């Protein structure tokens, strides 16, 4: 029986080093501006004056994001050419022969997973390194993690955890298949407004 896998990240030990992002680019030979996996810096709070000094009341954590291989993949729903499909194994893939580059999926996906490649004129995306999975290897990003906090796990429908962690959108939109263990600052992010601290890198 095919595995039904999703990415799991232990945010408590993620340093935001982007080895996963670069490994993905190397494996899939992605051009400039195309990032199937991205590392988002979550920033919030600020500095408060305290007499003669400043006190840090800010928070920071990193979330490495790729395709969530959702159980209700909105990219599949909106694709007018049926280029985007979810396979038996749960992996959402795009058929570049069928894709006409309309970019509806890119617009619809709340995770930024489908990435338009200007050079080829079609949408590209994470395929969970299914060639690796087929031979018992982990995806390139997982193999690349120097902190060993990124993994693929067998996740049954409804088995996701932490999928509503900021900056991720409400998980009931698409039922993402992922498991995130919290960073110590995730709780603080829940009590005040957070923002993305590295927008230009995404």
């Amino acid at each position, binding site marked *: 029986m095919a595995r039904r896998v999703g990415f799991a990240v232990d945010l408590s*030990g*993620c*340093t*935001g*080093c*982007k*080895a996963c*992002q*670069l*490994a993905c*680019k*190397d*494996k899939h*030979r992605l051009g*400039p*501006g195309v990032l199937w996996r991205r590392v988002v810096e979550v*920033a919030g*709070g*600020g*500095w408060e004056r*305290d007499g*003669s*000094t*400043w*006190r*840090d009341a*800010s928070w*920071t*954590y*990193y979330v490495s994001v790729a395709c969530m291989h959702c159980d209700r993949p909105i990219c599949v729903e909106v694709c007018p050419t049926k280029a985007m499909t979810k396979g038996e194994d749960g992996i959402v893939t795009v058929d570049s022969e069928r894709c006409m580059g309309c970019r509806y999926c890119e617009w619809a996906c709340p995770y930024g997973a489908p990435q338009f490649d200007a050079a080829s004129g079609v949408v590209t995306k994470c395929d969970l390194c299914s060639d690796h999975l087929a031979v018992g*290897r982990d995806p*390139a990003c997982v*193999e*690349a*993690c*120097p*902190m*060993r906090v990124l993994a693929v796990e067998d996740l049954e429908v409804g088995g996701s955890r932490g999928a509503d962690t900021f900056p991720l959108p409400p998980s009931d939109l698409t039922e993402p298949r992922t498991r995130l263990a919290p*960073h*110590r600052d995730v709780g603080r992010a829940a009590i005040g407004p957070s923002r993305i*601290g*590295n927008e*230009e*890198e995404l």
Partner: protein
Amino acid sequence: MRIRTCCPAHNCGGRCLLVATVEDGVIVRLEADDRRDDDLAMPRLVACARGRAYLQRQYHPDRLTHPQRRVGKRGEGRFERISWDEALDVAAAEIRRVRETYGHGALFVPYGTGAYSNTNGSHLARRLFNLSGGCLGIENTYSWACTNRATPTVYGTRITGNQRQDQVNSRYILMWGWNPAEMIDGTNSAWFVKQARERGARVVCIDPRKTLSAVGLADEWVPIRPGTDVAMLTAMAHVLLDEDLVDRDFVRTHCVGFDAATMPAGAAGEESYEDYVLGRRDGVEKTPAWAEAITGVPRETIRRIAREYASAGPAMLVQGYGMQRRAYGEQVVRAGCVLAAITGNVGIPGGSASGLGLPAPDGGSRWLGFPTGENPYGTAIPVAAWTEAVLRGHALGREDGVLGRDRLETDVKLIYAVASNCLIDQHMNVNRSARILADEGLVEFLIVQDQFLTPTARFADLLLPACTAFETYGIQDGWKFGDELLFMPQLVEPLGESKSDYAICSGIAERLGIGEAYTEGRDERQWVDRILELYRDRFPDLPDVDAFEASNAGVHTRPIDEPAVAFADFRKDPEAHPLDTPSGKVEIFSKTLFDLGRPDEIPAVPKYVEEWESPFGEEARRFPLQALGSHSLSRVHSSHANNPWLQEAFPQRVFVNPVDAEARGIRDGDPVRVFNDRGRLVIPCRLTNRIRPGVVDIPQGAWWAPDADGTDRGGNVNVLTTERLTPFAHGPAAHTCMVEIERERP
């Protein structure tokens, strides 16, 4: 074909395994260490972003592919193509001419770590000169000059670290300015901290920046004003005294100079460390309140950290290197060592003596195995004193750190820079260095051998194209810790006419009449075999080059099952196993430093010395912000500065706290001018809470790109930094740097 090799790490703090896929003579993919086993004794060597982006450097369109000779003025960057024969003839002729005109002391090979694979790198030029009468040598480093010198003043050695596998025995880890997640400091050093934390250690990061280590490894970040770490360390000692947390037994039996009762011979009645902390002589008690005003760290935080560190059980105080590249960088090293000693964390599992921390039992990595030989000229200067050796070599003496003779005989007249961007980008005060190099009456001939037209290479008279480490055979030693050797088979042919540094230097050696002596008849692969032989005492089962290559192992590792603990014998019996210090004990008070007679700059006990540029000085009126040049994952020093994938991942920005930005009307992303009297640069800013107010960060290593007006548009922090060196180690003080910023108006 999938071939295991080592990341061409330049001088990154890691040495990682990569798996290269080679198709039709081209490397098309670089994958992570693919070994399945991954445990504490022998963890996988997983490369960071830089290793994974390497192909963008390897096949960069700007690679140098043929020898060139300068046309036009020096520094203009205009060159014409010449043949290898002509290039090597010119190099040999100029070396001969300068040697005969000025003597061996006029020849100089600067510090350079742009290649580090034994058959590539600056040491190839060192061997060349060492076999032909010598040249002005270098000693110490840009990176850790102060800790190299100051750590032995306390412990008599630089080997003060337990092997990293021991960290899981620690209950408390103070990452003091230490940032293993970005600077790396040994492959897996960040991962070892994570292992300790998972086993219950509390991890606290003290740093002006909330580094990636502070975010991903620590339980708490304590932001501190740069250059004031000694004040906090001293106030922590005050808390220990105040609350009776000093390990009195260890101090009495293993240390000198803590108090009046433990002063070393010949120093009775002098100011002890306790005297200094309690302010008995200077009238200033170094309380947490005193330190709060200096460091910006709340007094209750200082008190709490001191208590935690002293009572948690075995605790590690791990020092970073940035804080010792500062005005009086020797002091922070000594103060950290002293705190480790008086809490009894020396010589025990889970503890740390602090300081440089080369690993027990033997100091770890040998860095390079290629035999450079002894320098027969026998004279050396601190690496960062090269500008002075050019400008006023005749006047440079022992007081400037000159070793081997009282005064230099000559100014430096020929520089042969191999794999070195230290003449421009990586040396302090770039505008000054550029003026010095542009004057053809000073350095009469400059040979630069590199893979790219770096800002240093733009000043070359002769430009020699080196191949990358993937294009020849090489070998690399596990950085700092030396737990493994990584073999680099030649993956592809050198690009264009480029050659290994070894091959180029061999060509010059031949023309200097020492070809045979230089090569000993070996090619690069045979040298790797020879180096493997030289390492066999450390790794008895090390294969020879044929077996290494045939196995496609890529790495030979010595698993660390029982990690060594530095000073364990000394701890058990200080009489039988004395330290290599004058007293045989931990020198909290150093009689050697006392005898220098410079108590204001080189005190006998570690002291907080206000920096020559600081927020507390007159200069802060015009330049109120402290500028740091952090180590970013975007580059290894200045290598990879032109790598598009890394620029995309980590764009070069000046990082500013919103508090400072708001006061100046600066918004996120604005182009910002950073300036002081030494120089100015303009790059976009990033507003971030991850830096303390009053501090800005311009990650070091970006390539200098001056516009017509002399403003650097590349974002090289060294246009702002000072060439002034530290008083004892003669090390760089680049991070002691006051600046102002303003929004750049179009």
